[in-house]
């Protein structure tokens, strides 16, 4: 750690890990509700568990991005953070807002939450992933603006590297596209159409810039490869990501009432979406192979490589699997989508945040890397989580294929619930894989507390 103000990243990472645990626990509850339908009913209905599961994910990834940016931007800009105090205040605002929102989800029926938060004044609630009360959304915007102000000031006064520039564009884009969450027209088609401007243009747009910048930063640090080499590849990869991903939004516009030319445009461009992810994998492995130093933090290198591979599999391969309109006609809104969503989020965004945490946490705790013992445990966590996620994805894919066959393709289609009963075996197996994933998360957290021989920073 070169600048003391970088340490503000630490509470963000700790908060993120706390929410990660919550996310996985609620995921397990949902997984069980898939097979034991009345589990915890009526205390935690499925929709509530799902809100906590997905919103905790989004918030902890945002916290992870923020922590990463607070760590990364000063180091790249070669200057102290504009205001560490503001960063700490915003952390607590964000954490408390997130906690209150989750408490709101769990404590009262959603309709009550909508009423007491004044949703009728500016209705934005009740749409997938954007379930947060309007007041929470406004809070997110305020936190984001303060965060961007703080980092932009730091960025402007310091060295402007490609990594910093790309990261800042990604973060500004994140904030700007979030504003579409306030647009909720009565017209269902327009509602859905612009809803994707938040969701898709985040995960297959600006978030990829953030992902690329963080990955490039860590790769420079752990491999010692020339900045020049890494930065130009970063530009090439994110160009490919935006060129394919932007119009690739069309793969969400096939069946929601949008005009049918999207079936062609969406299919063609999203067919190219695996390309940037493939390039990213090649890039990560190449840089590590050409490394000029043996960084003591081997765990961070493993996470960086894992990000490349799993993002390619989850976002690239599993995305392509069902992105072409004639295929998507049958798979749209089935467990295939769930399979893709799980591996893509884990492979791209969960892993990149953990990569950054894994790299920077030891430095913030005053050492170049954790002890060998701690790293071995961390690598166990890597494999437990990653293999578990591969199996979650495979089981959901199997469930999805059967679901499509029984409910959509068959000449004598079964109803939704009749189909669900037929595929419950796969849901059980997914739940087992989910438990292994939780063990992986716990192992990861344990690795933070393992002492042993350490190298000084």
């Amino acid at each position: 750690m070169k600048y003391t103000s970088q340490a503000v990243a630490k509470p963000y990472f700790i908060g993120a890990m706390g929410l990660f645990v919550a996310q996985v626990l609620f995921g397990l509850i949902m997984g069980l509700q898939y097979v034991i339908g009345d589990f915890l009913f009526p205390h935690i209905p499925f929709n509530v568990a799902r809100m906590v599961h997905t919103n905790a994910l989004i918030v902890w990834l945002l916290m992870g991005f923020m922590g990463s940016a607070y760590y990364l931007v000063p180091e790249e800009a070669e200057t102290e953070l504009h205001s560490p105090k503001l960063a700490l205040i915003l952390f607590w605002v964000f954490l408390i807002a997130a906690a209150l929102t989750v408490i709101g989800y769990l404590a009262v029926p959603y309709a009550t939450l909508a009423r007491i938060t004044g949703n009728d004044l500016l209705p934005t609630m009740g749409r997938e992933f954007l379930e947060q009360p309007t007041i929470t959304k406004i809070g997110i915007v305020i936190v984001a603006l303060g965060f961007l102000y703080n980092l932009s000031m730091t960025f402007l006064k310091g060295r402007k590297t490609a990594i910093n520039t790309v990261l800042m564009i990604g973060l500004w884009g994140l904030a700007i596209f979030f504003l579409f969450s306030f647009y909720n027209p009565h017209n269902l088609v327009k509602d859905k159409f612009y809803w994707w401007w938040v969701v898709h243009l985040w995960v297959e747009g600006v978030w990829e810039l953030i992902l690329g910048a963080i990955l490039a930063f860590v790769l420079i640090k752990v491999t010692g490869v020339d900045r020049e080499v890494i930065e130009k590849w970063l530009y090439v990869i994110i160009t490919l990501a935006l060129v394919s991903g932007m119009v690739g939004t069309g793969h969400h516009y096939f069946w929601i009432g949008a005009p049918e030319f999207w079936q062609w445009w969406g299919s063609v461009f999203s067919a190219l979406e695996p390309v940037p992810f493939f390039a990213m994998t090649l890039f990560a492995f190449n840089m590590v192979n050409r490394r000029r130093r043996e960084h003591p933090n081997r765990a961070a290198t493993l996470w960086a490589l894992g990000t490349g591979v799993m993002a390619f599999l989850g976002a690239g391969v599993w995305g392509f699997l069902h992105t072409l309109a004639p295929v998507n006609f049958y798979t749209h809104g089935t467990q295939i989508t769930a399979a893709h969503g799980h591996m893509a989020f884990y492979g791209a965004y969960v892993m990149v945040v953990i990569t950054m945490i894994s790299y920077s946490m030891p430095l913030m705790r005053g050492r170049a890397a954790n002890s060998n013992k701690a790293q071995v445990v961390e690598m166990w966590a890597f494999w437990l989580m990653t293999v578990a996620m591969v199996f979650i994805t495979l089981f959901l894919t199997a469930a999805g294929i059967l679901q499509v066959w029984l409910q959509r393709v068959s000449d004598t289609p079964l109803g939704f619930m009749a189909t669900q009963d037929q595929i419950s075996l796969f849901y059980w197996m997914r739940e087992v894989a989910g438990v292994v994933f939780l063990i992986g998360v716990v192992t990861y957290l344990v690795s933070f507390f393992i002492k042993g021989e350490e190298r000084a920073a």
Partner: protein
Amino acid sequence: MDTTINPPPATTDAEPHLHGDLAIWFFILAELMAFGVFFIAYAVTRAYNVEAFNAAQAGLDRNIGALNTILLITGSWGVVRSVQAARADRLVPAVRWMGVGLVCGLAFLVAKIFEYRAKFAAGLSMDTDTFHMFYFSLTFFHFMHVVLGVCILGILLLKLRRGGYGSHDVHGLETGAAYWHMVDLAWIVLFPLVYVMH
């Protein structure tokens, strides 16, 4: 992924080498993949609807299409001559030839706008039928490329006039030129495929 960072060579040498920056070649590759996938989709769809496609295709204005082909080829020729002139430090012709490329690009856009106006006036759009979905999508996607290409040629022209390129450095010039040739190439496939072949 191994690329050497040598100083931009100003003149051609014996060793085969890629003119223009490697980054633009990645971009060109991606663009050609997008066009390629679209072309294949067209060809496959057409194979299932030959008669409907032929009937709709008859309504296209091949004369404007042919004119546009000539314009783009001429434009590419101008850009090639401009790069050659710049390499030899003959800046005045370099600027003029780049001007030829730019004017051809602009003329293409004007002709295309007239073509679109006639189509819109006839009530045709992307949503008329599958053929017109492809016709408008492919030509508009290409149209956008020409717009971008014209912007790039304009920037190159300005920099040429300021003496920014010459035997000391044609790297940026070659990079922009490579993009323009790709735009030309895409049209040379698009025109016969959509306008002529049946």
